């Protein structure tokens, strides 16, 4: 519990072009090796201490490159915490740094509590006596506060849902346990493998649903990543200025995933909008032209919302059609601009190609239709358009990491059940899932299983 491997972003959020994720603990190097790929193929575990390595951070599932990174490898004991320490130097913005962190958490680390690196440094004898009182105060204050923050952050609905999942798991477990501890007791239906798979699948799908809502939590925290696209001179720059001027900018000039892309934050009717590539738009250059097809596709893929501008005073060009095709699987709004000029565009064709996406007509220059666009964005976000089937959302990184672990764990159980592994083995992973979910709501008490056993079943000899 206390000397497991921890990780956190250790540079201030949202500032500077480089972010460092620090990992400390016995498994630090191992975890980094699971995600890091160096051009030479050399493993960090085989490398010398206090060395720096260039390479890529990979998502092991999709095998795609998440970040280009420098890894500082520092093996115990000559490190800040006196444990093995890995520092991942990312040069990305918030989104990609968070993604790296999430992978690190998914592959074995636990999110560090506030002050935990310092605490470890102390516990491992790195900090002297005079600082110890301060450290204790820090632990008390920060753990309590962190706990409160985490609990407050969790709306009642989430904890209720986790509670329901846990209860379902607990009932399953109790039934298995009864079958084990009271093998001759015939009142309880034998927990069968198909039943277990059924329950497991249900829990898995609920966890996946929760995880999918986690992106909405991220949106609230980081902003709805929005890209404005369209042919040159279609009015992208005007729309951007209109959105920024009308709505007070929250943050400006945050370094993006590459030096070329600038982001701006605005608040549109309560929705935090992160406008991507504002520089590119202001230079009235097309994103695709400027940064290349591959890169722009990536930007589009990472966007939560795409606003496609079309020129109403011209006919639909092949390029417009290509863009309409590109945004087909995305959350997008189509704005037909320049209604102040004679209309050449066939609005019916646009609607057809739009495939049930919102189509708004506007004259941004005359400030017509911008309000409707803003309404639409807000409705999409709050009204269920953008991954908002259920307003329950998970935003806390710790919760997300635990949900990922719980998902892996229940998948192990289902897989084992399908392979017809004995039920008391499958139970090991179900118990683990139950414990992991319990960590989210801060409750993992072994005794509750035993209590469940005796309240649910009439036992005795």
């Amino acid at each position, binding site marked *: 519990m206390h000397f*497991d491997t921890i990780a956190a972003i250790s540079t201030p959020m949202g500032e500077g072009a480089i972010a460092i994720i620090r990992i400390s603990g016995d498994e630090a190097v191992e975890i980094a090796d699971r995600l890091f790929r160096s051009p030479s193929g050399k493993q960090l575990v085989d490398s010398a201490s206090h060395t720096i390595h260039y390479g890529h951070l990979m998502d092991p599932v999709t095998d795609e490159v998440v970040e280009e990174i420098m890894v500082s490898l520092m093996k115990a004991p000559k490190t800040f915490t006196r444990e093995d320490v890995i520092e991942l130097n990312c040069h990305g913005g918030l989104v990609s740094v968070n993604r790296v962190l999430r992978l690190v958490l998914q592959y074995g680390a636990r999110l560090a509590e506030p002050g935990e690196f310092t605490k470890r440094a102390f516990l491992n004898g790195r900090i002297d006596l005079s600082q110890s009182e301060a450290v204790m105060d820090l632990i008390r204050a920060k753990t309590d506060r962190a706990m409160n923050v985490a609990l407050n952050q969790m709306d009642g609905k989430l904890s209720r849902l986790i509670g329901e999942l846990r209860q379902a798991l607990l009932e399953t477990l109790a039934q298995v346990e009864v079958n084990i*501890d009271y*093998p001759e007791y015939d009142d309880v239906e034998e927990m069968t493998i198909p039943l277990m798979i059924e329950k497991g699948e249900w829990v898995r799908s609920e966890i996946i649903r929760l995880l999918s809502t986690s992106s909405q939590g991220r949106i609230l925290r980081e902003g709805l990543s929005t890209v404005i696209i369209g042919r040159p001179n279609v009015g992208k720059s005007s729309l951007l200025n209109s959105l920024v001027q009308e709505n007070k900018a929250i943050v400006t000039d945050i370094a993006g995933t590459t030096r070329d892309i600038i982001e701006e934050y605005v608040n549109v009717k309560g929705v935090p909008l992160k406008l991507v590539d504002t520089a590119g738009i202001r230079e009235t250059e097309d994103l695709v032209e400027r940064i290349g097809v591959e890169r722009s596709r990536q930007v589009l893929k990472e966007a939560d919302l795409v606003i496609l501008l079309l020129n109403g005073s011209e006919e639909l060009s092949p390029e417009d059609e290509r863009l309409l095709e590109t945004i087909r699987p995305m959350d997008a709004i189509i704005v037909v601009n320049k209604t102040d000029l004679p209309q050449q565009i066939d609005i019916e064709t646009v609607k057809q190609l739009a495939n049930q996406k919102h189509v708004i007509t506007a004259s941004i220059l005359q400030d017509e239709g911008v309000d409707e666009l803003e309404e639409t964005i807000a409705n999409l976000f709050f009204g269920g358009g953008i991954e908002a089937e259920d307003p329950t959302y998970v935003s806390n990184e710790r919760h997300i990491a635990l949900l990922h672990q719980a998902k892996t764990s229940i998948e192990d159980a289902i897989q084992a059940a399908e392979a017809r592994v*004995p039920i*008391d083995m499958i139970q*090991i992973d179900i118990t683990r899932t139950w414990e992991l979910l319990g960590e989210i709501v801060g409750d993992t008490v*072994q005794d509750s299983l035993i209590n469940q*056993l005796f309240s649910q079943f009439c036992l005795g000899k």
Partner: protein
Amino acid sequence: MPQFEAGTFDVIVIGAGHAGVEAAYASAKMGASTLVLTMNLDMIAFMPCNPSLGGPAKGIVVREIDALGGAMGKVIDKTHIQMRMLNTGKGPAVRALRAQADKVLYQQEMKRMLEDQENLSLHQGVVEELIVEDGEVKGVLTQIGAVYRAKTVIVTTGTFLRGEVIIGDLKYSSGPNNQMPSIGLADSLRGLGFDTVRFKTGTPPRVNSNTVDYSKTEIQPGDETPRAFSFETTEFITDQLPCWLTYTSPLTHQLINENLHLSPMYSGVIKGKGPSYCPSIEDKIVRFADKSRHQIFLEPEGRNTREMYVQGLSTSLPEHVQRKMIESVPGLEKAQMLRAGYAIEYDAIVPTQLWPTLETKKIKNLYTAGQLNGTSGYEEAAAQGIMAGINAASSVLGKEEVVLGRADAYIGVLIDDLVTKGTSEPYRLLTSRAEYRLLLRHDNADLRLTEVGHSLGMISDERYEKFVAKKEQIEQEIERLRKVSIKPEEAVQEIIEAAGGTALREPMKAADLLKRPEMKYEEICKVIPSALEISQDVAEQVEISIKYEGYIEKAMQQVNRMKKMENKKIPEGIDYHAISGLAKEARANLSDVRPLSIAQASRISGVNPADISILLVYIEQGKIAKISG
């Protein structure tokens, strides 16, 4: 009453129930001069409740006791009337043996074993008082004024402390089965400042088997495969007696409901807390009103008696109601009741007053074990008995104390739970209490504990050599299966397909093939026979180790994490009230339990992770202060 000096011993054991006999047997085997004092020599290792040993978790405990060199397994192997392996349809971690005992034979065999044991004296006598000087136990004083001096004393008085039997509204001072209760010793313990709680347990009525109509019951025979608890047993009992299964009827339920006001459980006569895993029939019917019937097992109490234990009908209703209840059960319409069921209330010691060695924190060299410590069950008692015996003898002989961990044995789980968390009701072991139950299996108890038993002198060199050879063979065979590759030849495919598996497409390591759910070690051996003669036991270990490798590894990782915390020792005499930052509840509970390691501290109720962090910081601070000071 004039006092006289009656002798001096290394270890005195008070009581000769299941805890007492193991304690005495262990300490004598280790070479400590040991005296057992019991109220009645005819009641050694008596089973006042069900005539059976083992079952899930408990059966594994019996094997563990045997691996340490204890008595229970050997004795039951010689005296059972039937044995069954339970949970055979499930995984290896939860399989467990259960035996129906011949109660009288069991007692006789155990008594003879103690009588034959070197360094061990048996004596009938009632201990009235513990002799304590300067917080250290020095001996005991009996009812007739005999003073026995000893370096250590182990109290194993079961449910005798201020015992009271209750049937209906009748309540009288008594030990189990109308034996003498222990009043003086109870006062002595309380006088020494021990906190006690009042617990309750019960037993069902017994009937004469000649008056049972078996045609209305289902037969429950023992296993045909010969079974044994002890790793040393070579002779098996083949002549087994069956048990019988019947059910309560609607009339039984009606009778109980109509007479509930006569039940001391509901009228308020019984105040002690009873075990929820072993409810009385009244309790079952009230709490689970929707159940239309409950199982009743009829279990013979021995070969030379017609007495039958009516399992499932534990009750403290008045005897006239019990008679009608029995008559309402199919097959028991004409059954003659030999003894009525009853409830018994007794004092138990709050077990958080003990160190993990079972030595009391208050009085040096005084140990307590068994039902007195708030547990229930013969096996749980025996487990504590053997550990108390080992530790008392170790202390006398200047050996290191022995504390089994939660990852070592169910015995470790049991004792850690008791001394760390305490218990609010009579404590029973369940497999679900063990977080590493995959490691704590029935089949590997010897692999886990023989080493310990041997180092204590409780396992003979001969047995130990056999054990070492077995261990080596297991390792070699696992190594072989990991190395040898099986090619997709016709003969091989036939064997695989006969087992219900899919044919090999390319060569595969034997170990990997064994990991397939349908493959058994036997089949692998048909393909690649071993040059050695592999016993059933070895084959089982090889199969389990390979088949469940992934799960075992996961469990080992968990264990290693816990061990780190276990190795973080908390210095003695730490003043929790002086540590700023600890929560109030944590402070109180830590002061009570006085945990020895951070891991133990983290298991105490009311101690949360922040408290543990603070505790770690505090301990580190002390170390630094020492170095720099």
